[in-house]
């Protein structure tokens, strides 16, 4: 049987190492009490939204791929129809060299298709340039099905619109033939689709400044992926991006120092006044009184806030040249706060003792909505690949601070430049 020196010893030993598991709700309450407004906790519905966006993008890509295959089949069918000399829809084989000047000066309408012709070698070897333009496999079996006449040449249907986008050099390329789309079933529809429907994707980086009304302006940058659909001159674009921005935060520091608060006269000795025996003379010495004194100061280090952005934009191409296009776009951007980084207060003074350091920076909300205006200038490098430079202006539509907690309503704006690279399908 265990023996205890006294009751204190009994309880001291008995309570040693006492552990009790808390209920599940305790951590949730702590999270609610401490983390609310401090940052973005990824919840299941955030992941669901991201998954939906990915599924939507993937589905769109899949169906567009199917559409592209169908379009190619139309083109292939026309080629194989041409191989039959008795086909009434057969194209006139006697090509006429097109007036390239007419082609260059735009006198030919956009809906009028032209056919590019390139010569092949006697053994059916394809000329790579034409194959590159058409995107077809040089060794396609279908090409072997062409008649003797067509074996010498490859036919590809292109509209003026798509030729422009492929940056074909008319001086060096093969001669072209003008074709009436009414003579070729399905061609008109194919060309219409090719011209008016056009998916694209891209990647870009953005650098700019955030202009805060109450604190110093700060640098911001982002990296983004874009997915869009172009229909004629209009395009719709979405995507996902990661943005980092900074802002001056504020730490309020309570300090204590051991300072003099006053003095008193301490009686060192006393004596009877020789002149007046009823009077006592006190000999005193002034003594300073010290005590702890509270002080306050503040520091303003740079705080970092990281966001995930999801834009929804609509654009209009108002200038289209052979290799150069300019468009204006507008829309909204959803920003989700995913991370915050607060450096420590770097205050130090050996004459003071820090009592307490409090972060008094206004807390940010979990998400924001911004309006964007951009002017995108595209330059086509090669077929379907272009680079862009785009000055961008955004304005917050809701406050970055949590006004529900009494913080001010602050809606900054940003100005910057986006540099991107885009690929059209």
């Amino acid at each position, binding site marked *: *049987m*265990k*023996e*205890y*020196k*006294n*009751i*204190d*010893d*009994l*309880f*001291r030993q*008995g*309570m040693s*190492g*006492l*552990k*009790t*598991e*808390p*209920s599940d709700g*305790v*951590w949730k*309450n*702590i999270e609610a*009490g*401490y*983390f609310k407004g*401090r*940052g973005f*906790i990824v919840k299941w519905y955030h992941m669901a939204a991201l998954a939906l966006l990915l599924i939507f993008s993937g589905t769109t890509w899949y169906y567009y791929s199917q559409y592209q295959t169908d379009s190619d089949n139309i083109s292939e069918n026309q080629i194989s129809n041409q191989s039959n000399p008795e086909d009434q829809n057969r194209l006139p084989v006697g090509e006429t060299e097109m007036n390239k000047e007419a082609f260059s000066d735009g006198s030919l309408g956009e809906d009028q298709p032209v056919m590019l012709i390139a010569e092949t070698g006697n053994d059916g070897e394809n000329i790579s340039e034409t194959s590159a333009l058409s995107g077809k496999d040089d060794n396609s079996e279908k090409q072997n099905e062409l008649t003797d006449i067509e074996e010498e040449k490859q036919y590809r249907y292109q509209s003026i619109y798509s030729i422009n986008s492929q940056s074909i050099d008319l001086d060096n390329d093969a001669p072209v033939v003008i074709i009436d789309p009414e003579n070729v079933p399905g061609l008109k529809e194919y060309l219409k689709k090719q011209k008016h429907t056009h998916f694209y994707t891209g990647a870009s980086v953005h650098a700019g400044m955030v202009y805060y009304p109450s604190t110093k302006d700060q640098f911001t940058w982002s990296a983004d992926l874009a997915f869009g659909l172009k229909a004629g001159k209009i395009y719709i674009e979405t995507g996902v991006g990661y943005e980092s921005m900074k802002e001056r935060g504020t730490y309020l520091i309570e300090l204590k120092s051991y300072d003099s608060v006053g003095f008193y006269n301490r009686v060192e000795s006393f004596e009877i006044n020789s002149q007046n025996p009823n009077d006592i003379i006190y000999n005193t010495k002034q003594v300073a009184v010290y005590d702890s004194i509270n002080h306050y100061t503040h520091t303003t280090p740079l705080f970092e806030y990281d966001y995930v952005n999801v834009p929804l934009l609509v654009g209009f191409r108002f200038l289209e040249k052979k290799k150069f296009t300019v468009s204006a776009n507008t829309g909204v951007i959803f920003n989700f706060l995913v991370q*915050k*980084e*607060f450096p*420590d*207060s770097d205050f130090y003074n050996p004459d003071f003792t*820090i009592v*307490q*350091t409090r972060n008094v920076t206004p807390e940010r909300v979990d998400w924001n909505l911004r309006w964007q205006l951009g002017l995108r200038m595209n330059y086509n490098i090669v077929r379907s690949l272009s680079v862009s430079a785009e000055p961008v202006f955004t304005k917050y539509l809701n406050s970055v601070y949590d006004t529900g907690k009494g913080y001010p309503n602050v809606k900054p704006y940003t100005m910057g430049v986006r540099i991107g690279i885009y690929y059209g399908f």
Partner: protein
Amino acid sequence: MISDDQIIKGCRKGKHHAFNMLYKKYAAIMLGVCIRYSRTKTEAEDVLQEGFIRVFNNIKSFEGRGSFEGWLRRIMVNTAINHFKASRKHVNHDDIENNSAAMAALSNADDDVYEGEFSQEELLKMINDLPDGYRMVFNLYVIEELSHKEIAAMMEFTESTSKSQLSKARKWLRARISEKQKKYSNYERV
């Protein structure tokens, strides 16, 4: 196993997972501290929640001197005392001096400590059943090993009050232990 230094570093950077790891590592131990100062587990969990929020808010002021667990323990004890001070303004305590039956039990208690096997749950139950003021002083003096001067400063009363509360707490506990042992000895006879 991640060290305290790494956890503290992560907490200072505001990393959510670092706070979670800190909680998971010390929650059970700190609840063991809080429950000694409380009447019920629910009350202890309230103190624990408040204590951890204070820990997170002040993690940057931990200078690394002394053990981190000791620093956490002090915060929990301070939180428990603040909780007690706040509650005693609103609740009418049935002071033991007004309870004649309890006073009679105390006066009949032995001064000697008993031999015996007592489970942690039994001892904790006795502490939880102590009147609030006695429980605070008993924990601070016996378990936290503070002096009466320090206890008086924390609890905002005099040293003599601290000594008096401790003496009464001991008598109360002895009485409970004595009752329990008499009960066990009756069972043995049967």
